[in-house]
């Protein structure tokens, strides 16, 4: 499995809204903790460490 870098979410607006609404009313610390739990949960879902490696590579390189 390789990292999907083409459009893959059927309803991006809904996904984005889900993410934002999960953080509504949370303090910075609570939000950070929620993000951390979310990342770990998605890492488990992905399973393949190579996909994680590619994703980290992509996000690290993309700070320009």
């Amino acid at each position, binding site marked *: 499995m390789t990292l999907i870098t083409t459009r893959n979410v059927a309803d991006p607006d809904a996904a984005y809204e889900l993410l934002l609404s999960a953080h509504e009313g949370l303090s910075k610390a609570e939000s950070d903790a929620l993000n951390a*739990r979310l990342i*770990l949960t998605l890492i488990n879902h992905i399973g393949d460490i190579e996909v994680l490696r590619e994703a980290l590579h992509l996000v690290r390189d993309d700070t320009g």
Partner: protein
Amino acid sequence: MLDDRYALAHRLYPYARSADQDARGAVHHPVVIIGGGPVGMAAALDLGLKGIPALVLDDHEGVGEGSRAICFAKRTLEICDRLGCGDPMVEKGVVWNLGKVFHGEEKVFEFNLLAEGGHRRPAFINLQQPYFEKHLVDRIRAAQDAGAPIEIRGKNRVAALEPAEDGARLEVATPEGAYAITADWVLACDGAGSPTRKALGLGFTGKVFRDSFLIADVRMKADFPTERWFWFDPPFRDAGASALLHKQPDDIWRIDFQIGWDVDRETELQEDRIRARIDAMLGAGVEYELVWTSIYTFQCRRMASFRQGRVLFVGDSAHQVSPFGARGANGGLQDADNLCWKLAAVMQGEAPETLLDSYDAERGAASDENILNSTRSTDFIIPKSEQSRLFRDAVLQLSRHHDFARPFVNSGRLSQPCVYDGSGLNTADALEGGPRVTRPGAPAPDAALGNGFLLDRLGNDFVLLALGCDAPELPDLRVVSVAAPGADIAERYLGDAPRGLYLIRPDQHVVARWLEATPAEITNARDRAMGREATP
């Protein structure tokens, strides 16, 4: 200058004048072992049992006080079985299999180490280091009585070491003055602070962790179960940032508190300070006696090479790990296990000296693996940054209700023997369908066999294990035949293969395996494992 650095638990080898001290010149010894800790004594025993004269020089007269290492792994016990002293250790030790991890008040999860049957030895025993060392020395005494050429000299401190191409010259300090000896081979088993390593000006590099831990061994009658309990952010908050409770023999409990980096050792070691922490943990009114206390900080570091010509570094002198995972003493015993048969083969002229480079290669890889594991555990237990704490706490939070997150929890990855993948001593795997767990380089796993166990049948030398087939006839190669392999052996050694032949080294690691093999193929594999050119 020969003052004791620590008090003794057992005075097992009082200073006695040796004839070497009255000799005209420096008396020669084939092997000198510097340091009589668990690693040095195991090496002396292993060599002595193979008929190699081994002289142990220890700057104390016996076994030091204090529990120190307490967790001895199955592989260590198997090595001790091979050396003939596994039984008293397991009889005295506390067998445990269950570990529980807490975060604050709540139990996050528990693990059971006893996943698999058909092993003679448990996954771990807890045993105070002085007992472990005493059982080794008792076994050495019995071996000496039976003629094994081992000698232990107490209060003999190596004051100077001059390495040479073909050995070394040592100056030894005693209460009655100094004397000199020479040696063909020197094993430096003198611990993490190794004076030998320092004398040779050799580097020891790695990572220092900025935290310290208070160990308190207490004697109490408590009805806590025989389990390993580990707390992240314990509810008894003032006691430490993490804590460990673990049972040892004689009603002794190991308690370990993470107390921070900037602490004043002397203050923290005062009895009332220690009792305040323990009372917070156990609750008021629990009666206990403080048996041994200590504060430690730790490093993960290693030497670039464990072999310096005729001087070999074994155990903590070569590599140091954090205590999480019990990889210090257990790793050191595996070093000795790896080295001694090779050194004996070289000294007996059966193998070239270059075989000893494989000690550095194999145990160097093992040490990297131990350091990697113990560094990862330490990074989880002591988060170095805000982000690493965030993820650590997220893992613990998720783990309370979700099993998928529990494998991320790392309160120590317990010592497992290293598989020597890629070692030049191995022959390419030729058993199609064979299980990964017994691939060339792997330590042979135990299995029920008849009324006993497989490892007890392997012995101390190269052995050919024939499973469900006849073994080709070879001179000087013992065969262990299992005509009808049972379920354990079939699962661990055959997998999908209908039968198999295994060549196993003296340290019980697999070096080659086949579905079938000619005598020449087996001889070649054995030659390769001895570092010899293949027989034409």
